[in-house]
């Protein structure tokens, strides 16, 4: 089998720019993550990218999320094809090569109050969880969805898919006491109406189980 050629757009923090580098790897290399690993071991030991669960089949840590041919994908789940273009996620800010600032996510949860802890109840409590929330709890914080949103900007006032998923997790939790629909409004959920561009690389149903239900409930509650 021949070689495969692909391009990595590597962020340079000293210049603040992305630089395109073309690489060749053996044709036997399977996924984009395999290719990046090969490069790090044999070609450029300073190539930076995130991954954690490479040893485990059938699981997702979400850390290898990158842009592949313009779309957020998990590098470990994407077979490498000739001519592919790999770049860091568009949001939040990139740090180096393909690594972005994941620390942004936890800071954002705190800054926006997208968290709460209820006092522990007696165990075991009777808890009914809507099926939608069960699915939303599959989020791995890979931040890929933010790169699918045409409206989101890092640090801005609009919530975007990742934050609306977190908000919906709270809203759909019986024990949560916050006014999450008011929060959805203040985070601009109305701007999502009719958009539906966002998606999750791991299949979490962002639009169906987070955005549309909250939009609908917020409207039903709004004064005429």
């Amino acid at each position, binding site marked *: 089998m021949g070689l495969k050629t692909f391009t990595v757009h590597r962020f340079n923090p000293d210049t603040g720019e992305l630089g395109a580098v073309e690489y060749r790897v053996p044709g036997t290399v399977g996924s984009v993550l395999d290719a990046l690993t090969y490069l790090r071991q044999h070609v450029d030991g300073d190539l930076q990218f995130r991954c*954690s669960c490479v040893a485990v089949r059938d699981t997702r840590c979400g850390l290898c999320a990158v842009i592949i041919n313009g779309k957020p994908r998990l590098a470990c789940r994407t077979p490498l094809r000739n001519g592919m273009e790999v770049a860091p996620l568009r949001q939040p800010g990139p740090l180096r090569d393909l690594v972005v600032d994941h620390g942004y996510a936890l800071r954002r949860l705190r800054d926006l109050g997208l968290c709460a802890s209820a006092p522990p109840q007696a165990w075991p409590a009777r808890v009914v969880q809507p099926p939608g929330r069960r699915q939303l709890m599959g989020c791995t914080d890979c931040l890929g969805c933010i790169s699918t949103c045409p409206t989101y900007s890092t640090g801005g006032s609009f919530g975007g898919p990742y934050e609306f998923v977190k908000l919906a997790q709270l809203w759909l939790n019986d024990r949560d006491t916050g006014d999450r629909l008011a929060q959805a409004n203040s985070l601009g959920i109305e701007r999502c109406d009719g958009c539906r561009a966002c998606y999750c690389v791991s299949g979490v149903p962002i639009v169906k189980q987070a955005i549309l239900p909250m939009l609908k409930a917020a409207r039903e509650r709004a004064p005429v």
Partner: protein
Amino acid sequence: MPSPVYDVVCIGGGAAGAVAAVTASAAGARVALVSKEPVGGGNTKISRGAMCVPGLVAGDSAEVMAQDIVRCGEGMSNPKIVAQVTSTAAEAAALLESMGLVFDREGDGELSRAVLKQTGGHSFPRTVEVATRGAAWNQALRTGIAASAVDVFEDTIAGKLVVHDKRVCGVLALDLQRGEVLRLAAKAVILATGGAGFLFYPHADNATTVTGDGYALAFEAGAELVDMEFIQILTIEGGWFKSRVRLLNRDGEEVLPNLGRQTRAQITAAFAREMARGKLSDDGALLFDPADGKSPLVPVWPRVHTFLGGVRVNEKGRSTVPGLYAAGETAGGLQGADRLGSSALTQALATGITAGKWAAEERHRPAPSPLEGSDGLDISTNGTVRQTKLIHELQAAAWGNLGLLRSSASCQKALDIVGRIQAQIPDISATPTRGYNAGVAEALELKFMATTARLVAHAALARAETRGSHLRTDFPDRDEALGRCNFVLSRQGDDVKVRAEPVGSTTWD
């Protein structure tokens, strides 16, 4: 600027570390959490996400679960720690649910018998699950941390504990984004860095960040470790399936009866037996039969899953060095020679809560001095050796000599190879740069894995018998005299000292 002074610094952001931090903070301590990955990650995020909680069905109790743990641990477990964990398990599950995780229940919201699993060695069904597995734990733990007052340092790897007058008083860590040393003075430090399964990659199912950091940090700081020879290897576990699943060899023979009720050590020992008999498939596998009437046989191989020993702590999570605690897989004493399925996450939460609570008590102590600016991390730069090459050599040596089967010769060979690798570490090229540099973290992780391998080899050499997950080809039977002691490791200069202590003899306060 003087280094910040915390009451408690937690190292490790998985289930144990996050819960320890939240607990200590809720008790009134000023807490920092240092984590290599985003909080909630590591093995926790990619785990099955199940935990065992006693007392969910009639007849079950914390005492019965304690008996099951002690039996599975083949007498190596510290009874005080077992009692502490089993009596804290329900509180731990309730805490996680208060952070937003909802374990699977019936449609009417009841946690009934029908939704519980019972894996090998458990006397009653007591395993609760969540549909999205470890991802749900990740969500809940991050929510809990975000809602707390804990100061969080992600993309930060702890490199060294600072010890003054035989007391741990701080942590030197590396901020991977800035390439700068972070100095955190602390009245107490909790090590919750997980196990060291990645030492055995690719013959392991652990995250790449599970590299024995806490074991090495503790050892360097003069703390004792225990049960380092016991490492659980998982082949397949039958109790998760509804059908009567089977494990077959190349001739189609069932290698052991009643797969659903076997412990993991029993199953892995069966694998070793079939290997010795030449009955593995051409791929070196056994064949798992899902017995559901439609699925084909699935080849399965043994893979390192959990470290069962660790930092030697008492039931409060306190190590032999004042100011130093350990929780989760980093802490030894609970599991002994083998562990029950779904008990690791119970261990993480319960020991995390306990260590967090007791570490928080140290806030009444006088503050330690801020750490000196001259305290640094010795990560070599400008060398010629690629750390990935050394890491691969170490991993191969670990699996080949300390993996499924051990012998006096294999343990000694492991020590020789580790020694040669350690001698090359000062020649590594790993310069911290701005923006993010995983190479520096890797260099530290190589050091930590090498130390861990050394500890495992010494402990495996000392235990001249076969017990639980520890299989010796040169001592294939149990030795009842060794069944009354744990092997404790400590540092003397550069040497590893090994001694036997009666089981559960953690008599310090």
